[in-house]
């Protein structure tokens, strides 16, 4: 009996050793064989342009038969934490998509493998804005993927019902049409003339850019948050008054909770500011499931600026794809990226409502009437401060919290912007 107990203990101890070595062995074996690569893309691709992903994978597999491409779709909320965890574990994906405001921190930390742009398709005509977000210290660390400009997506029939046969060209007209819509339909307390989720800080910052303000400035290597400048306060005061009058969206949620396309498709909103891909998303089962006939009622226009003849500057958002420096399959990863950012896939990405990564394909969108206003909106644009720590400002929800504080009257515009600026100054100057 006793012998049996000892045997059991010895067996358990031996097993634990076996288990640990076995799992260690598995891991290294998987890496060496390289029968598959792992690709992390944002779920936007899954919802908006799955054909482009399939096209790239087909093209890649005709070049590398037998190599599986494991595409894993990520959400913007959690992708960076997951990426950090994979870096800590030494088990990163082979290809990863990051937003163009997120790349700086990762390039600065050495998380990306440097690349030779000339080896990639259309690199001589890459969009300048995206190319800049892939460049750090004179080297290129990622490949431009796509960009997006935001415009107002609206209901033509509702605008017509209050006497607007064409979209407003000035900010005063914009205010006028929305006032009329609220007067006519606002008795329904679910209705918003202009649906603006309170934490959609991209629109708030568009106002700041329109009034000549900046989020932060750099003097002699020191960053300073400047939203509490007179321009910033003026801009956000105008933003607040507009939103409180015309929007009944939540003031504590962002533009993904829910997607504005949902209340829009359900006739709860006459308009909202959205990316090009949000137009087709209105018809997606997850994005509002509008019937095909709804398309006839839809239109888009660049949001007018308070300065005559200009548009409200739009955030030049976009995405890049890169190869993590810890990837074990860098050359395969490069081949998949070449296929995905090549002309064939980028054409499909453009048709889905995005600005493609090369100026050569800009004509694709201009020919589609629904997408032309988005291309026009991109004539006036702004971007986040080019600082390695910028993404930490986004991750700490500084601007979302500020918008909520302003729109719920928890803080005055002056106090909310001063608090946000102090946080921004602190985060941007933190040593990495």
């Amino acid at each position: 009996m006793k012998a049996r107990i000892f045997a059991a203990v010895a067996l358990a101890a031996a097993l634990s050793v076996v288990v640990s070595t076995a799992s260690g062995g598995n891991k290294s074996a998987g890496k060496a064989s390289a029968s598959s690569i792992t690709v992390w893309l944002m779920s936007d691709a899954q919802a908006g342009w799955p054909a482009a992903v399939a096209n790239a994978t087909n093209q890649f597999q005709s070049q590398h038969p037998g190599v599986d491409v494991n595409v894993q779709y990520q959400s913007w909320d959690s992708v960076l934490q997951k990426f950090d965890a994979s870096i800590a574990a030494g088990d990163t994906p082979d290809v990863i998509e990051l937003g163009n405001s997120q790349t700086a921190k990762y390039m600065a930390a050495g998380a990306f493998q440097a690349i030779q742009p000339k080896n990639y398709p259309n690199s001589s005509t890459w969009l300048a804005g995206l190319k800049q977000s892939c460049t750090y210290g004179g080297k290129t660390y990622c490949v431009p993927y796509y960009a997006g400009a935001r415009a107002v997506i609206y209901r033509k029939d509702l605008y017509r019902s209050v006497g607007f046969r064409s979209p407003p060209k000035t900010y005063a007209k914009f205010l006028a049409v929305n006032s009329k819509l609220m007067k006519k339909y606002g008795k329904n307390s679910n209705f918003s003339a202009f649906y603006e989720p309170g934490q959609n800080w991209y629109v708030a910052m568009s106002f700041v850019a329109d009034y000549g303000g900046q989020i932060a400035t750099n003097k002699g290597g020191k960053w300073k948050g400047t939203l509490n400048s007179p321009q910033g306060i003026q801009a956000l005061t105008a933003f607040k008054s507009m939103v409180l009058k015309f929007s009944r969206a939540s003031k504590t949620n962002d533009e993904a909770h829910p997607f504005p396309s949902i209340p829009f498709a359900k006739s709860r909103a006459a308009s909202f500011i959205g990316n090009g891909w949000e137009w087709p998303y209105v018809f997606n089962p997850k994005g509002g499931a509008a019937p095909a006939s709804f398309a006839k009622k839809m239109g888009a226009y660049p949001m007018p600026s308070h300065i005559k003849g200009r548009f409200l500057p739009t955030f030049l958002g976009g995405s890049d794809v890169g190869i993590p420096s810890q990837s074990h399959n860098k050359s395969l990863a490069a081949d998949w990226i070449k296929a995905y950012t090549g002309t064939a896939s980028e054409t499909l990405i453009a048709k889905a409502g995005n600005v493609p990564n090369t100026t050569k394909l800009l004509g694709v969108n201009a020919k589609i009437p629904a997408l032309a206003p988005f291309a026009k909106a991109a004539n006036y644009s702004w971007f986040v401060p080019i600082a390695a720590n910028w993404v930490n400002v986004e991750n700490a929800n500084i601007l979302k919290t500020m918008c909520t504080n302003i729109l719920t009257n928890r803080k005055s515009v002056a106090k909310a912007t001063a608090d946000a600026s102090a946080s921004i100054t602190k985060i941007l100057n933190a040593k990495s």
Partner: protein
Amino acid sequence: MSSRSPVAAASVAAPYAQRRRPVGRRLRRALAPYGLLLPASAVIAAVLAYPLYYLVRLSFQHYGLFQLVRHKGVAIGTANYAQIFHDSLFWHTLVRTVAVTAVCVVLTVVLATLIALLLVELSSWVRLLLTAGLIFVWATPVVVAISIWSWMIDFEFGVANWTLTKLGVGNFNHHDWFANPWSGWGVIISLIVWGAIPFVAITLFAGLTQVSSELLEAAAIDGASRWRAFRDITLPLLKPIYVIVISLSIIWDFQVFNQIWLITNGTPSPDYYMMAVYSYVTSFKISEYGLGSAIAVVMVAIMGLISVFYVRQMVKLGDVE
């Protein structure tokens, strides 16, 4: 685990061993308990002690994304601790954590006691129904439960606002429960307490069934009110159970994370920080892993103190029996 105790096994095995090697037998007998503890100790060391050691080590390092990529931190002594102790956000968060924990534990224990007392009085099939309801709440995975709650209180399409409006409580159409932190915390605390009640209620009910009804009847005959009987008879008898459930509730509620994180879509404003959220945001959102670890170490230290109290109470109770 074998159902046979090691002592019993050893005594059965004894006659054989005695005949052959008496010294080895004694040695083996002395070492056997340690041998048996070894697997469990190894597991605890691997899953608890090592991460804790690593956490403490990290808290004395500057460890950002740059260091993460290289898997190597920079030792900076106690600078992380100095920074958090000079941060007003840390103190606000600590006070809020203690306050929220206190409210949650009190509500959980009081409501669970009332439910347990109700269970004793109910007819058996209603008791079965109520117990089944409690078990369902308990069995719901916390992430699923939070998703259901967040749909119910949704700003745009939520059933809670719709129902309250229909019932004539007021115009709750487009009521934003998180616009005001007091009402936001009301929702979060309800969610935590709702999830915590079943375990406590069922445990207390199990305890109540052991309270002799003769004692309560005798008290009633002597003219004691129900409240008096509960206070002077039931409560002292249930003290061991209360010590356990209160201690466990404090430990659970102090480290609440999921409920806050998921119901705010992963974007809580600092008004909604508890220690665990604050540590997570600092570590994983801002990539200040050293600083985040220091916050976590402070949290572990506070929990450690609570655990000491808990263990001492348990040992005391053990002595009485």
